[in-house]
């Protein structure tokens, strides 16, 4: 009885979580241009359109470029900072750790508006790279947290041994630290990549009037007429997101990572 009830509860929550995705997936297979469910006919036409329609393709490329570059910049900011905090005794540098976590804790509209006023004041408003910097700062929290966890799990006697044998800081980093930290670099990058791919408001406030990322394009399509392509894009996003997290789970310790991401100490 007890087992049955707990299974039932899990199943109900599972249905709640899956229902919208199931419906959207169904809609994306419609043969004609309508949003019927269950789908009428079967067609992969709307998926093809993401890659053949120049507007959707442009939005896809813009989104992927933004996510690839901003996640790289986020890691480039987080890695030296996390390494420094681990390697040195520097209480003052904790300030930067706090700054790195702050944008992610505040409501996103704050970061978005901060960047809007900043780029407007400095005269760079609308340049494509402004969104790259905005996303890198907004999502730097994720690589910072995964990397801090990664460094704290390194056994210091390993680096000590290397140093005793005569390796300098640079050699220790390259030959001992980097291989140990690499999985955390990858998962930090993956987190930032996925979130940047899906992010709407910061991208909209920085470059929304100049170019469209996929989330912006979907939102505009919602306003100005529905098409099953939106559903196909959503399915693509769900698939990519689930695949990335699946890979993180496959190659990393997801339960431990989650523990680190949500504990405040």
């Amino acid at each position, binding site marked *: 009885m007890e087992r049955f009830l707990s299974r039932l509860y899990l199943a109900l929550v599972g249905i*709640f979580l899956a229902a919208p995705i199931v419906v959207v997936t169904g809609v994306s297979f419609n043969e004609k241009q309508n949003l019927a469910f269950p789908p009428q006919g079967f067609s992969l036409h709307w998926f093809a359109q993401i890659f053949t329609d120049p507007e959707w393709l442009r939005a896809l490329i813009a989104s992927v470029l933004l996510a690839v570059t901003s996640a790289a910049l986020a890691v480039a900011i987080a890695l030296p900072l996390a390494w420094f905090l681990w390697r040195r005794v520097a209480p003052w540098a904790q300030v930067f750790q706090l700054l790195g976590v702050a944008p992610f804790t505040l409501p996103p509209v704050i970061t978005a508006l901060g960047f809007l006023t900043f780029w407007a004041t400095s005269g760079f408003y609308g340049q494509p790279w402004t969104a790259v910097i905005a996303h890198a700062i907004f999502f730097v929290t994720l690589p910072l947290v995964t990397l801090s966890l990664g460094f704290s799990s390194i056994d*210091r006697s390993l680096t000590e041994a290397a140093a005793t044998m005569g390796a300098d800081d640079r050699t220790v980093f390259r030959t001992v630290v980097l291989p140990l930290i690499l999985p955390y670099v990858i998962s930090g990058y993956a987190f930032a990549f996925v979130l940047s791919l899906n992010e709407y408001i910061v991208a909209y406030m920085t470059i929304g009037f100049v170019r469209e990322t996929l989330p912006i394009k979907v939102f505009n399509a919602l306003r100005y007429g529905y098409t099953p392509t939106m559903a196909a894009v959503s399915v693509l996003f769900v698939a990519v997101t689930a695949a990335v997290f699946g890979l993180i789970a496959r190659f990393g310790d997801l339960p431990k990572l989650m523990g680190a991401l949500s504990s405040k100490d």
Partner: protein
Amino acid sequence: MRREPARGLVQHLPVIFPGLMLTVFFIVPFGTMVAVSFFRRQQGGFYVPDFVLANYARFLTPFFGNVLVFSLYLAIAVAVVSLIIAVPFTYLIARSRRQTQVIWLVALLSILSLSEVIIGFAWSTLLSRTAGITNLLVWLGLMEAPQALVPGFAAVLTGMVYQAMPYAVLVLYPSMVRLDPTLTEAARTLGASPLRAFFTVVLPALRTTLIATLIMAFIFALGSYLLPQILGRPSHWTLSVLITDQALYQSNMPFAAAMAVFLVLVSLALVALTMFAGKKLEA
């Protein structure tokens, strides 16, 4: 290699780039926004440096007062409902096998990082007349004709709970996993039913986490921007929607900035409250 203080420029080198980036692109934009909130707006969408409090005074009008009250009310409702669903759910997955846990975590993370646009679109389809859940009820004979359930408050609430619930689970998860299983075992041995053990042992042991989760879900919901627009009517718009509207479409940057500063203050006050409540409960 022992940790030692950094000496000289070379040893400080690694911290310079991150420090510079975070200062220039977080502190400065934030400061710019705070400054602009005191600027005076000019005709045509521009603003000039000044020190006026008029932007803040505009909160006192009934319209913005209503929006603020509605935003807070919606965020509280979302946080409470999310927590009610998330607590038993997290408890159950934390006690399941590791492989099962990982699958649930992947699903939750995927939903959590999905774009608000896509969540909004998915729910507006699920609640629509043509493709929606009411068709299922008609098919089952429970309903006469399919109905549209959007736009409306229930739709906004459902969409936002869908988004915030995974977040609440992920905040609860570490504490639930770390919870000592002997606690419930002891309660069971002493004759408590599983439900009774859950309410009298598990929940009290986690009260600090529960409060923290509630407030974090509240802040998360407070920042929601797209769902009230996609799933609700203009009367369901939140402060975040209004901030964007003022900044981009009404070209009133100073007023938008003032509202944003206010939103930060509310969020910070709540975070401080959480920490304070946590300390008090632990003491």
